[in-house]
């Protein structure tokens, strides 16, 4: 609820800023003459620059579904991309285009798995027997000493460590007046989780004057191996404070809205929000506190 209020406030500020920038037609006096200029011929577009460099400064947050962890603040968002004739670098993703026609663009892509990022902001919390038992009278033993736990004895509860995985795969990009869609299939090539992810998403951009809205939806299937590596509690990690859990593969979904109001050719106000629903088996993990990830951001963006 607190997050929703923050987003609503940020959106309200952005809307006010947008309203300030629109000239009022009511200001026209009686002397005003309206003239219609002849339509100019379509412009010949210059080739796009290979580098795309941008930055946004503002305030945002992405919730962290992991227990004992902090939400991820987003104060600066950098956009660094290079598009060559065939290969490209797009904010950490490295791609090689092998097919491009009127219907589809297909790329081979290498990327870093995004689930690992949630495991970077974890804390250790100490829980007592009375807190763990929750009214259960069964005796519990300290796994280190083997001795029975006393109600006031505190044990650490810390999310386990996870590694980054390098994933390689194929993506197919589609686009037209109907919007943009993409299909992705990635497999771990770093032998970290040995799993795979399949995903599809769709977005549609609406441009009205200087305002651009881009709603999007997406679904993704994460395999059992991938889900269990990041979100399961493995046998060597189980403890009195953390029960063993095996996460299975499943389908998650997400929806988002990105809004840009262009002040100049290179400066814009940006407001965005994204909601991701974790797949069921991940959401049931004892490592997961919330079954969703919600991100939002409002700020000023520059395109260099």
């Amino acid at each position, binding site marked *: 609820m607190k997050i929703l209020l923050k987003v609503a406030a940020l959106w309200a500020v952005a809307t006010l800023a947008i309203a300030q920038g629109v000239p009022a037609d009511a200001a026209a006096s009686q002397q005003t003459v*309206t003239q219609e200029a002849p339509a100019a011929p379509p412009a010949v577009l210059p080739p796009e620059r290979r580098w795309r460099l941008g930055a946004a400064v503002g305030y945002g947050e992405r919730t962290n579904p992991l227990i004992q962890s902090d939400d991820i603040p987003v104060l600066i968002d950098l956009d660094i991309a290079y598009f060559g004739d065939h290969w490209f670098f797009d904010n950490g993703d490295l791609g090689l285009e092998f097919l491009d026609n009127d219907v589809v663009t297909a790329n081979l892509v290498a990327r870093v798995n995004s689930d690992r990022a949630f495991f970077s902001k974890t804390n250790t919390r100490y829980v007592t027997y009375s807190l763990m038992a929750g009214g259960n009278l069964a005796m519990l033993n300290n796994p280190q000493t083997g001795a029975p736990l006393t109600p006031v004895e505190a044990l650490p509860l810390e999310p386990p460590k996870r590694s980054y995985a390098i994933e390689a795969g194929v993506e197919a990009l589609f686009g037209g007046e109907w919007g943009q869609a993409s299909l992705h299939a990635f497999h771990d090539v770093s032998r970290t989780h040995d799993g795979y992810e399949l995903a599809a998403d769709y977005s549609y951009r609406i*441009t009205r004057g200087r305002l*651009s809205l881009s709603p999007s939806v997406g679904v993704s299937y994460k395999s059992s191996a991938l889900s269990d590596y990041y979100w399961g509690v493995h046998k060597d990690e189980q403890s009195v404070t953390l029960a063993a859990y095996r996460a299975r593969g499943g389908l998650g979904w997400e929806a988002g809205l990105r809004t840009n109001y262009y002040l100049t050719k290179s400066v814009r106000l940006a407001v965005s929000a994204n909601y991701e629903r974790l797949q069921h088996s991940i959401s049931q993990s004892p490592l997961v506190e919330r079954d969703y990830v919600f991100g939002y951001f409002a700020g000023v963006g520059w395109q260099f």
Partner: protein
Amino acid sequence: MRRILTLAGFAAGLLLAAPSFAADSPAPVKLVIKPLLCVIDKDATSCAVTFDIRWKSPQPAEYCLSDSVQTTPLRCWPRALAGEMKQERQVTEEFRYWLSLPAGGLPPPAGAERLSEVKIEVLRVGSDDRRRERRTRHVWDVL
């Protein structure tokens, strides 16, 4: 005495130079146009904009408004201190509006001095290169 004569000569020179200095530097004319930016989506060829054009000058004169798309002025205001108009147009590329003075009752020549000038910019959002439209799924990627 010699110093007084020097000072008097300097003062007289300043007085004589003053009118010509004023004539060489015409008072600034302010041209204000809204909006200054036209945003075109990749699937569109132009954007429809109604430009709100206003100008103001401290000296009454005949002022003509021109743009870099057509050779003849869009409009001239005879002996005016201010003017305003609205212009609807389909914008496809960047262009400029400017104010200038007509030459001897004729429209301002192509090379006439521009008293005030405003550039209208065009921003194209989206790309025909589908790779530039891909959505990354990073934790920090919010834009």
